[in-house]
Structures are given as C-alpha cells and as structure tokens.
C-alpha cells in the first residue's frame, strides 16, 4: 500500500517528462523485470504446482465411508417368514414395487406370490449374479421358490443385505467409487458433450471454449456459459479452494495443463466422475456419479437408463439448483435440454431423445439410507468393531461390514417396545418409562435385533448395552442350576423350606427378605419354588450352594459382575445390562453350549478381501445335563408359574421357557425367555432409578410377548443331554412311578439324582412293562 502511494506521488511530482525514448527504455526494463519474475517466480511456482499435481493425483486415495450391511435374507422352501416379513425385507433392501418386474431391484406381488429381481451382489462368501425368481409364502413360511425364466425350483437363494448405515469420513463426503469401464458409455460421452466438447483434444485449457463462452456471455449480457474444461473443473475441486481470485484462475490453468501433460484422458475423466459434487444428504456431500446414482435412483450406475443419465449429467451444472427432489420442474427442464444436446451431437437419435424426455424423473422419493437406520443396533456394531479397528480406518477405508441384523425382527422389536410402553401408560403405569429389548438367535448367538430407547430414532443412551440395573429374580435359575448339579442332594422334586430367613449383614443390620405375596409357603419342591419365584426358599437354597459359586458361575457364563458376595445376590442384587442377561440365557437356551453374542460376521476391504471373520465358536459349559433339567423347569414357569399369562398374550400355545424379574420397590421389570430358535430379554424401568410400579409380568413380559406374538417361533426342545433322563414319578411324593399311574408326571433327572423308592402303582407297572418287552422280543419263541 505505502509503496503504491509513493509511486503515485512520484508520478505527480514528475508530470512533464515527454521523451519517447525514455518510454522505450522503461518498456525494456519492464520486459526484463517480467522475465526476471518469470524465471524467479513462475518457474519455481510451476515446479511446485507440478509436484503437487503429480504427488496428489497419484497418491490420491479417496476417503471412503464404510458400509454396514444387515444379514442377507435366506429364501428357501420352509424358511420361516410371513408375507409381510418378506415385503418389509424387500423395502428395507431398497427394492421398488412395480406392476411388471423388468430389472434388478424391483418386485411385484400378487396374492401370496412375490416376484423378485435380485441385484448382483458380492456377499461375504462370494459374488452372486442377478436372479429373477418367484416366491410363494403361505402363513408362516415360504412354500416355493422358482426361477422366472424356466419355472425350475430353486433350492436356496438369498436377497442381498440391506445397507443399514455408513460410517463416514470426517470431511463428510459420501462416495461410491466407479471405474471408467463400468460407467455407461452415454454418461462418458454425454458428460463431454455438455461440459467440455473439446475434451479429447485440448491440452487442459481450451482457448476455443473460452472464446465461445465469452461470446455467448457477451450476447446474453450475463454469464451463461463457463469456459472451464473438465480438467480445470477437476483441478478446482481437487486441489484448490473455492474462492474466485485471479491467482486461483491462473493456478487452475497451470495445473490443468500439468495434469494433462502427465496423465491420459481416461485417468482424468475417471477421477472427475468420482469427484464431482452431485448432492447433499444432511451433513454429507454426495460426490461422484456412483453414489449419486444410488442416492437419486437407488440403482447401481451401470443400470441407469438414458433419461436418468441425462439428469445426472445436467446436475453437474448445479447440484442444488437442479435438485430433482426439491426442484423437479427445474430439473426436468435441465434434463430435457441435456437430452436435446445429446440428440444434436448424435449421441441419441432424435426419437430416442424425445422418448426419454417424455419420461418422468424416476428419482426415489427419498434416499434409501437416511443416515443410520437402526441406531441402537449399529451402536453395538461400532462397539464390537472398536475392539478390532481404529476409528480412522472405519471412516476412510470403505470397509464392508457384515452384521447379523434382521431388519424385520428389528422393526418388530422397536414397535413392541414403543407401542408396549404406550399401552402400559394407558394401564396406569408412569408415562416416562424407558425400556430395552435384545433378541438373538439361540444357537449362533447372532444378535438379530437390539433396541435401547423407546424412541428407536433417538440417538444417545443405549439402555440395551449401557443400562446397568439390578436383575431381580432373573438370576434365580442359576441358584437352582447349582443345586441340580449336586446330584446327591437335589432334584426338581426335592423339598425345601420357604420360611422366613434372617441374615446378619456385614454392617450389623439384619436382612430378612419377604416373598412377593408377603407369605411363606412352607415345604415346597425346587420346581415350585423356582416357577413361583419364592424368595425365602431361594435364599435358603442359595446358602446351601454358596454365593461365591453363584458369582463364579455368572462369570463362567461370560459376564463379569462386580458385586460383593452377599446373600442378596441370590435374589438378584446384581447389576447387569440387558445384553449381559441375554448372554447368560443364551447358554441355558442352547443347553450349555455358550456362544459369545455377536453382531458382526465379517469385515472386508472395499474390494471384497476378507479382513476378519467371526466364525461360530462353541464354548461348552460344565454340567450340561443339569442345564437340560433347568431348561425343562423354565418351561414350567410359563406353563404354571409367574409367566402363566404369557401364552395368552402371545396368542399361541407353543412351549416357551422364561423367567420374570422384579426389583425392590418395583424399580425394574425384566422378562427373559426363549424358544428353540430365539432368545430375548426385555427390560422396563425409569432412567432415574425411581420406583416405577412395574413387575416382571406386568411390564417387560407384555413387551416380550408382543414381540414373540409376531415372530415365527419354534417350541423349546425339551430333550436332555447325555447324563440326564426323563422319568415317570409321582408328582406329590417324588417317588418313581410309571405312565398311567395316578399323579404320575414325567420330568427330567440328572443321572444319580433320581429317586430310589417307587410307588406301588409304579412297581407293578414296571414289572409288567418288563414282561411286555420280554414278550415283545421273545414272546414268539415261547409260544
């Protein structure tokens, strides 16, 4: 500034210097100066830019968001699913319902038949091509799967998994990379026709293009055309800021020339196709045609039709101005202009262009993935991923993350909780109850659904994973399990005392637990005490088996409970999360074969190379025969105990095992239950731990029941492992009996715990049955 002013004043001081030759000398000096500047500044500057262009362009690795997938839906005759389940899975996986199915990503339905055109997909265990088939669903299961082409039965197929979340780069760019050979030719040529007709020939900067643009702008009186080549546009996005200064323009031109000097046109065009800005989804910028195609049409780029290609090409000019969802008219106009240009340049025949212009925009009403879909579940995925991956890799490496989520079951679990809590409020319970649900596959430990808030779309505190609450009676079965392992002392019909018990606490006070109905029930069997959840009997039994044994058993089942070894632990004075309770019960439901609960099955690189797989691993528990006996007892909780009203709530008579849990002052309501194929936990309570008026059966069990009412379920398998067996015994005396004797019931015993005495009826029956077998085997000979 000061220099400039000085110059001015000098000029003013010497106004009358006329000599021409002086001007010549000045020009000469100016020329020399410019040469100096060129040599001194421009050359090093160009060298610097050259370095930037080459290192950046070659070393350029786009940060790619990781994609999180649900489990693929297996479709085969006999698969358990309703028609509604299948339709929901299709929609979540981004399938569009049409009248006539003609391309991948579409389905149609007629009655109980659904016609599906599956997209090609690289599954966890390999790529599978497109597949066009019909599925017939009757009631609760798939009846048949046939190929559309020849009507042949398909033994097994699967839908590609729904994309449920993306883990985005920090600079908030969303992108799906494409290779130029996979891009529709019309897009490659059309982009040049609209944005840079001379692309094939210019050296990076197109003087003719600039002139043409200038002329057009002059004619119009304002800027209607830009003279930037695709290369310049790429340079601008790639290396430079978006400010409009002369220096930036100069840099842009130099770098464009350099880029062209170093790389061939195909490389430059491919980079452009992946870099160009084409939309905004919330905080995330949609870059490149690959993601734009998914974002607007829910289709891979290769499958776009002419009118769709034209729309995307047109949007390069201004992705928000021509946003087809927000400004459909403007977008249509622009698209049709592009189509006309396609016709003019011979890329399409006039008839083709006209036909394409007559079509609708065909964009989906909203993008398929609106950010993360199942927040609570994805939370669990991230937690399990964090054990293996750096946050940074997840954000930048474009990993493919395969999870165990079942979208249809997740939706049902969310609904069961949200609706269930509203219903409870109508029944007079507090309106600010919160809850959580965890649903897992019994045999594989794969988590199918997880809900951590009554509002499934509210991010934040995930109660299924983080809420540590006292578990109440839900812990009791483990006390009985420990007892059943003492074969000399206990079986299910062994009698124990349900009488008042008073225990001195470490602080000198006395602890005397009451039963739920404030009564003592005297002499009861283990089975009764467990199914009716008697506190006093359980504490007495617990004192026999030992609190340390109980705590170490919890640990063996895969959960670490940090709690003092005090007798109140027998009644559930131990804080666990719903996920941890599910882990404990998975072992019981799977008769002693524990599997760590998993939300992940595999992680792959963007190219489909496997980075890590989470295979099924079994961890057998000791004394599985006792677990088999407990398994039976837990079905009796539902049959005749505290969960007796469950079958009515579920609306089906299926053998289910379960246990209710209530904590002091009715702060927490738990229900844990399982069938042959599913194990689930529901918890209800208040976030501030205040009394909520809830019990196991009045709150959590209703939610559990509502969920299982909607699930296709299989009855609990009552078979016991080796080392235990079913015997006919007298229900009252516990003595051995026989089928057909009055009061005889069939229940399981761990070997060595069976009664030795026999009822009179049992003894006679035993004899005659021996005889009958004898007759059966040797009777003919005798005769």
């Amino acid at each position, binding site marked *: 500034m000061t220099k400039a002013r000085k110059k001015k004043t000098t000029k003013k001081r010497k106004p009358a210097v006329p000599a021409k030759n002086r001007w010549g000398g000045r020009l000469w000096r100016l020329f020399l100066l410019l040469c100096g500047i060129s040599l001194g500044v421009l050359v090093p500057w160009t060298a610097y830019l050259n370095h930037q262009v080459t290192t950046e362009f070659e070393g350029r690795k786009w940060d790619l968001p990781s994609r999180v997938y649900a489990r693929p839906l297996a479709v085969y*005759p006999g*698969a358990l699913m309703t028609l509604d389940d299948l339709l929901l899975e299709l929609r979540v996986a981004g399938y569009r319902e049409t009248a006539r199915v003609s391309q991948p990503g579409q389905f149609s339905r007629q009655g109980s038949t659904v016609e599906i055109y599956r997209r090609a997909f690289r599954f966890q265990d390999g790529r599978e091509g497109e597949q066009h088939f019909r599925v017939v669903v009757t009631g609760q299961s798939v009846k048949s799967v046939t190929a559309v082409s020849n009507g042949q*039965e398909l033994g097994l197929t699967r839908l590609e998994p729904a994309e449920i979340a993306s883990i985005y780069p920090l600079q908030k760019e969303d992108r799906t990379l494409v290779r130029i050979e996979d891009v529709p030719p019309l897009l490659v040529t059309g982009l040049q026709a609209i944005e840079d007709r001379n692309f094939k020939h210019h050296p990076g900067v197109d003087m003719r293009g600039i002139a043409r643009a200038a002329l057009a702008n002059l004619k119009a009186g304002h800027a209607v055309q830009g003279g930037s080549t695709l290369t310049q546009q790429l340079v601008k996005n790639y290396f430079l800021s978006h400010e409009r200064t002369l220096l930036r323009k100069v840099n842009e031109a130099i770098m464009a020339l350099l880029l062209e000097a170093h790389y061939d046109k195909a490389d430059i065009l491919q980079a452009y196709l992946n870099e160009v800005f084409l939309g905004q989804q919330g905080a995330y910028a949609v870059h490149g045609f690959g993601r734009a195609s998914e974002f607007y049409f829910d289709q891979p780029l290769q499958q776009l039709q002419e009118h769709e290609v034209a729309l995307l090409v047109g949007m390069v000019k201004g992705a928000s101005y021509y946003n087809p969802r927000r400004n459909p008219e403007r977008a249509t106009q622009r698209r049709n202009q592009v189509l006309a240009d396609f016709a003019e340049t011979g890329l399409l025949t006039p008839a083709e262009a006209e036909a394409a212009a007559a079509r609708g925009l065909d964009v989906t009403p909203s993008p398929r993935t609106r950010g993360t879909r199942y927040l609570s579940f994805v939370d669990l995925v991230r937690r399990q991923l964090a054990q293996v991956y750096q946050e940074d890799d997840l954000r930048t490496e474009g990993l493919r993350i395969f999870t165990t989520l079942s979208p249809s079951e997740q939706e049902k679990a969310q609904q069961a909780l949200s609706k269930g809590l509203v219903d409870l409020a109508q029944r007079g319970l507090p309106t600010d109850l919160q809850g959580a649900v965890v649903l897992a596959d*019994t045999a594989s430990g794969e988590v199918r659904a997880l809900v951590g808030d009554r509002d499934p779309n509210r991010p934040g505190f995930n109660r299924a994973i983080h809420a540590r609450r006292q578990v109440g009676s839900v812990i009791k079965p483990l006390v009985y399990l420990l007892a059943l392992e003492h074969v000399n002392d206990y079986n299910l019909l062994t009698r124990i005392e349900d009488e008042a018990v008073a225990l001195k606490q470490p602080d000198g006070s006395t602890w005397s637990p009451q039963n739920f109905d404030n009564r003592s029930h005297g002499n009861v069997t283990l089975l009764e005490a467990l199914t009716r959840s008697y506190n006093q009997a359980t504490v007495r039994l617990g004192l026999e088996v030992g609190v340390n044994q109980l705590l170490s058993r919890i640990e063996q089942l895969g959960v670490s409970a940090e709690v003092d070894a005090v007798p109140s632990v027998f009644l559930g004075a131990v804080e666990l999360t719903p996920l941890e309770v599910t882990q404990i019960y998975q072992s019981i439901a799977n008769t002693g074969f524990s599997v760590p609960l998993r939300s992940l099955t595999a992680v792959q690189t963007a190219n489909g190379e496997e980075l890590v797989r989470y295979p099924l*691993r*079994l961890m057998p528990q000791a004394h599985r025969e006792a677990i088999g006996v407990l398994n039976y007892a837990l079905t009796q909780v539902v049959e005749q105990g505290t969960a007796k009203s469950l079958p009515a709530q579920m609306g089906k008579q299926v053998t289910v095992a379960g246990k209710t849990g209530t904590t002091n002052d009715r702060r927490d309501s738990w229900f844990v239950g399982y069938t042959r194929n599913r194990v689930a936990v529901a918890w209800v309570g208040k976030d501030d731990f205040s009394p909520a008026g809830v019990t196991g059966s009045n709150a959590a069990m209703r939610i559990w029941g509502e969920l299982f009412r909607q699930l296709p379920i299989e009855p609990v398998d009552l078979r016991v492992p*080796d080392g235990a067996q079913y015997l006919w015994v007298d229900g009252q005396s516990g003595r051995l009996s026989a089928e057909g004797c009055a009061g005889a019931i069939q229940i399981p015993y761990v070997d060595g715990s069976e009664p030795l005495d026999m009822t009179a009826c049992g003894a006679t029956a035993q004899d005659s049955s021996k005889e009958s077998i*004898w007759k059966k085997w040797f009777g003919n000979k005798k005769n």
Partner: protein
Amino acid sequence: MEIRKIRNLVLFLAVFLGACATSPGPAPGGSHEVETRVRQPAQQDSAGVQVFPLENPAVTELLADASAAESSGRYEQASMLLERALRIQPRNPEILQNLAEVQLQVRDYEQALNFASRSYDLGPRVGEICSRNWRTISVSREHLGDHRGSVEAEQRAKSCMITKPEGL
C-alpha cells in the same frame, strides 16, 4: 505273450507309481486323519446305514458345496457354507459333525471336540453319526493331550452300534 504281459505290468506299474509321484504331496495330517480315523471306521461300523436323512433341499445344496470346498482344501469356504446351513437348521447333527470334521482338518481340536459333542447331544446317539461324533472326540482329545479321554471316546464310538433294548 509273456513279454507282452510283463510289458503291460511294467506299464501299469509305471503309470501307477507315476500317479503317486504326481499326487499333490502328502495330504495334510488333519484331512488324512479325518478319513482314516473318523469317516472310514464310522462307515464300517454302520455298514452304510444313514440314520438321519436330509430333507431340506437348501441344506442339501449347501452341504454338497461345503463337501466340494472341503475336498479341494478350501476349509474356510467349507466352514462358511456349513455355517450358512446351520442358520437354516441350527440343530442338524450332520451339519454340526461336518463342521467338527472341518475343524479337525484345520487342527482346531478344541472346536472339533465342541462341535462333535454338540452333534452327539442333538443327534440320534446311535449309528454312523454317533460313531463319527465319538471318533472325532477321541482324535481331538488325543491331540489335546487327554489320552485317557481319547481311549474312552474310542470305546463309546464302538458302542454306538450296540442298540440294547431296555429292560432286558
């Protein structure tokens, strides 16, 4: 005539021994063991009686694919296919036992033992599959250093074929 015979014999031996030379190296101990110590004796025990017929075509398809993967040494692929089959029939003893045998071949003896035990728990507890269960358990225990347990399991395998009617 004699010369011709000898020539043929020589040719035959050449081809036969040549095949030995070009066979793909010594088979990995695991896969050899599965054949000689689990499958073959179990088959002999049962004289080919299949106790658990497979009914689900989806599972049949996956088991066939898994078997093909296994015999070409792609154990990881075989495991994945068997796990897919297990998602369809989680309690099918045949699938569980096949997984146990794949694990035996990749020398994951602990998991081989676990899957075979699970298969036994859920299976018929007699016949060929029972024998495969216990033979897998026996081999696994041996590798895990439990020699007494291994011998015991071997005995159990033999008793899979004895079906004693109760009460006799």
